[in-house]
């Protein structure tokens, strides 16, 4: 199956083409094409995973093959396939979630006029994402990196009739552009240093330049890419707004897969960061900060999808932090589990939104009676996210905390633990408000159709079970496959487990007290910390700062340039042409019409010439 890995991106791409040009008018067929191609990709992915395990493909000995895509003297760009356990894991995650989301969308998008368009975009996304995962060089990575950005743009703006949606997709694209700018520069630097884009060749060459200034700069620049794509501070602003897209899209792209691409990128070429310590620190602290930063915002938000979005931010920060402290294993492990339970959460949220026609958690409430499957799968996802034993999140989060502490980042460890508390708190706030308590919906909610609930159930199973692939007590588990350097078998640390579980439970408890039992008034707290609340509610005003920058700086400069273009640059040209014309208009009056005047001029000129010729200094005789 590895031999046909190149089919992975091609199949969905084919799906995209077919949907766009052939089955556009046949909605159901379009959906089936999308699902079929994605299912085929999933099968190939599974086959690849099987072969990886069977043939003992390791991180050190990946299977790689490539063709020259472009070759000019001094530059060879390959189109290649690189399969190692990291890629295999990522493939399975992507394909699985994508397939489930495709199926879910069958029901969710029912009756939407842009049904086929929606599935074509999803296929395009699938193709780009899979292409990104199997890339064997930076160029190809960047290529698909941008294409997933495009798919994201298209899908966020799927409801292009809504101002907010098109505003959001623009914002997403631009934020990603800024990030890609850094990414591009980063691997330009690498190319300058090593003359290749190929991951393997770079990996071999890098240690010789370990911690050199240039490599550090390159690493930090490359990291800007993930900062954008994985929505790390300060380029995180686009992700919450990206929730304007259809909910399954949020689940697939803006929670499970695409945003994880940043984490994947850092893991993919971890050797770069490993050889640039400062860059690694940057990764760790940006990740940690984002984890905390986003979690605090999530506490006060009332939009179900945005809460999940901030939670995604926070969790991505976690992953980055794990990478930053040096553990690809932990980062990727969390990526995997997070993909499942976050997809579950989003799909569940979508189901709820579908039922109540609103995003606001205050418009929901008491859904557990009407929508049991949605509710309970959602709770499972939440438990996984909160890191409650034995759900998937528990294992992965624990591993992150563990490696952070082991690597000596005590500060980050405490921060991460605190974030775990916050996570548990805001997620259960959401649960208690939206799914339990009084029904506040204006609509009569009802359970979603089968095509939506089945993926929920499947994902719930994954959310429970996926953690075990990396459970520390297993002998040959996730850690043995995906790692950097040499595999590191995590030793279970009961203290860390206990602390994190305890703190998560306390978060749940606090939420229960405030929002379910209402022993503590949320209003009072809000009034007490009004300043803090306002800041959080406004997401630290980051959006406003950017908006100000754009409106007051960029647009002002633009207008100034525009003015100068019209008045200075063009003005100079007009000045010249006007003066020529004016010169002509003036000079014509020397032609007075009087012939004796003419004669005088002619003779005067003759005499002047004679005088000139009579004076040797002037060139005369």
């Amino acid at each position, binding site marked *: 199956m590895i031999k046909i890995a190149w089919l992975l991106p091609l199949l969905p791409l084919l799906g995209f083409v077919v949907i766009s040009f052939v089955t556009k008018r046949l909605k159901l067929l379009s959906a089936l094409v999308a699902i079929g191609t994605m299912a085929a990709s999933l099968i190939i992915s599974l086959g690849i995973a099987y072969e990886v395990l069977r043939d003992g493909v390791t991180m050190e000995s990946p299977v790689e093959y490539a063709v020259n895509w472009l070759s000019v003297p001094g530059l060879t760009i390959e189109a290649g396939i690189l399969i190692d356990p990291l890629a295999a894991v990522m493939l399975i995650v992507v394909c699985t979630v994508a397939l489930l989301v495709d199926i879910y969308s069958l029901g969710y998008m029912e009756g939407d006029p842009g049904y086929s368009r929606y599935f074509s975009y999803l296929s395009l996304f699938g193709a780009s994402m899979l292409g990104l995962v199997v890339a064997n060089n930076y160029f190809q990575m960047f290529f698909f990196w941008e294409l997933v950005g495009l798919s994201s743009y298209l899908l966020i703006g799927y409801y292009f009739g809504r101002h907010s949606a098109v505003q959001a997709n623009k914002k997403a694209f631009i934020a990603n552009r800024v990030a890609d700018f850094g990414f591009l520069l980063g691997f330009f630097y690498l190319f300058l240093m090593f003359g290749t884009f190929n991951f393997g060749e770079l990996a071999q060459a890098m240690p010789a330049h370990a911690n050199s200034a240039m490599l550090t700069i390159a690493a930090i620049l490359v990291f800007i890419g993930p900062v954008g794509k994985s929505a790390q501070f300060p380029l995180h602003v686009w992700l919450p707004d990206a929730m304007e897209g259809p909910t399954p899209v949020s689940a697939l792209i803006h929670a499970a897969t695409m945003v994880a691409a940043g984490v994947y990128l850092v893991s993919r070429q971890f050797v770069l960061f490993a050889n640039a310590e400062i860059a690694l620190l940057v990764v760790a602290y940006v990740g940690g900060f984002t984890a905390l930063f986003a979690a605090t915002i999530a506490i006060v938000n009332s939009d179900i999808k945005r809460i999940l979005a901030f939670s995604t931010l926070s969790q991505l920060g976690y992953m980055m932090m794990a990478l930053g402290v040096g553990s690809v294993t932990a980062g990727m492990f969390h990526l995997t589990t997070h993909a499942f339970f976050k997809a579950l959460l989003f799909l569940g949220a979508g189901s709820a939104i579908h039922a109540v026609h609103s995003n606001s958690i205050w418009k929901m409430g008491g859904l557990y009676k009407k929508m049991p499957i949605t509710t309970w799968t959602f709770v499972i996802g939440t438990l996984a996210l909160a890191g409650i034993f034995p759900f998937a999140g528990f294992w992965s989060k624990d591993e992150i905390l563990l490696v952070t502490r082991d690597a000596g980042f005590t500060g980050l460890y405490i921060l991460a633990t605190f974030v775990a508390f916050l996570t548990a708190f805001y997620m259960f706030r959401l649960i208690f408000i939206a799914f339990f308590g009084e029904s506040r919906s204006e609509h009569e909610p009802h359970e979603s159709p089968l095509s939506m609930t089945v993926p929920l159930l499947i994902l719930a199973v994954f959310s429970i079970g996926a953690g075990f692939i990396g459970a520390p007590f297993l002998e040959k588990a996730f850690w043995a496959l995906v790692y950097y350097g040499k595999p590191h078998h995590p030793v279970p640390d009961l203290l860390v487990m206990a602390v994190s579980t305890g703190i998560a439970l306390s978060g749940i408890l606090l939420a229960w007290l405030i929002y379910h039992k209402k022993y503590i008034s949320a209003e009072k707290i809000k009034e007490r910390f009004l300043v803090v609340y306002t800041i959080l509610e406004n997401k630290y005003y980051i959006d406003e700062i950017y908006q100000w920058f754009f409106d007051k700086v960029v647009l002002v400069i633009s207008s100034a340039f525009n003015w100068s273009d019209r008045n200075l640059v063009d003005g100079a040209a007009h000045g010249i042409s006007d003066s020529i014309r004016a010169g002509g208009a003036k000079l014509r009056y020397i032609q007075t019409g009087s012939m*004796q*005047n003419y004669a*005088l001029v002619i003779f005067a000129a003759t005499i002047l010439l004679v005088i000139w010729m*009579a004076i040797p200094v002037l060139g005369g005789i």
Partner: protein
Amino acid sequence: MVDLSPVVFWTISAIVIGSAIAVISSKNIVHSALFLVLTFVSVAGIYATLTVDYLAAVQILVYAGAIAIMLVFGVMLTKRGDIRESNLFNQYKYIGLLIAAGFLIMTVYMLSLTEFPVVAGPIGSSVELVAISMFGDYVIPFEGAAILLLVAMVGAVMIARGGNKKQ
């Protein structure tokens, strides 16, 4: 050196210049015309001092005889208003003078710088030489001049017949 009385030259030159100035300064166009005849005749005198008798004769016949008379006719045909005020200066009186003076000064200056390799010697029979040349080497310009006169005649008729009175 040509044997020549300087007195004759100076006298005739004075008449030439004086009458030429009178042509210009006279306010009456008829007087101007008469002074012009005087100038032409005196120029013929200059020719005579150069012993170019033939040209002196031509000068008197053509210029004093024909051209000057033609000019007088022209004056008469276009007579209008007071004849005593018929030949006034225009606005270029002074600047024209300036340029004319400049012209004179520069020309004289340049002439004065030149050394001429004067060849002294009597001139042959001028009429004979001219006649031979006219129908020898100079036949083409001669014929051209003939056509020129013809054209001038035809043209003068064409033009003078045209034009209509207009108040």
